[in-house]
């Protein structure tokens, strides 16, 4: 699925990375706990989260993720967007809850059978 399709499905705002919306992604990790993102995210390309701080961006950088979606209307700060731009990460935000956002993506084909064990 292209990042632009994620934007459309989640009716999301694009905060940065407009030039990379054509990029294809095949997996998502939804989590507010960065410790678990670092432990379990595997090769997941997109991070859905309701946590808003610079460590969200740095965690995504460490895990080679290409797109972050902030759920529940959370807005990234300028500092966070600067970090994301430096690392070429697309940042989106949606009014949907984590549950609804994950459901929309899953039911439209972004399916993962990844288990932590």
């Amino acid at each position, binding site marked *: 699925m292209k990042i632009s399709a994620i934007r459309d499905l989640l009716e999301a705002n694009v905060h940065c990375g407009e030039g990379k919306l054509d990029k294809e992604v095949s997996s998502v990790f939804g989590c507010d*706990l960065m*410790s678990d993102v670092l432990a379990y995210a595997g090769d997941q390309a997109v991070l859905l989260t309701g946590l808003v*701080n610079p460590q969200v961006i740095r965690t995504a950088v460490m895990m080679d993720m290409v797109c972050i979606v902030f759920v529940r209307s959370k807005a990234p700060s300028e500092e966070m967007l600067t970090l994301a731009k430096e690392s070429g990460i697309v940042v989106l935000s949606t009014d949907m809850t984590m549950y609804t956002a994950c459901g929309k993506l899953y039911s439209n084909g972004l399916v993962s059978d990844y288990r932590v064990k």
Partner: protein
Amino acid sequence: MSEELVFRFTVDGEDFTSAGQASVQVKKNLRQLGLSAEVIKRVSVAMYEGEINMVIHAGGGIAEVRVCESYVEIILDDKGPGIKDIDLAMQEGYSTATDTIRSLGFGAGMGLPNMRKYTDYMTIESEVGVGTKIVMRVNC
């Protein structure tokens, strides 16, 4: 490479918002050196976990990354409170972090286990009231 390359950082323990800066820089540096994506990810995640730990638990410290011919070594040295029971600290889910730290997305007790998971070699030397030194290696 005939001579090893060393990157050294002072990790600020006062300001949580800057936690992880050194690891982002290390990732950039390793990319410039042309190391494989897998090695870079393993080094940077292990260092990031260690750097966050230093800020959360130890009030900062010194992080050093040595790029050698067959491995990358990460040395994290702090003058924090030390780890009372290393075996317990290595267990997934065990944490002494405060609720404030948990609300920032960390302190789930995954840091040390994760550092071991992402590296090929790891030692912890710690003395209560003196500090902690962690050495990790990722083979190239």
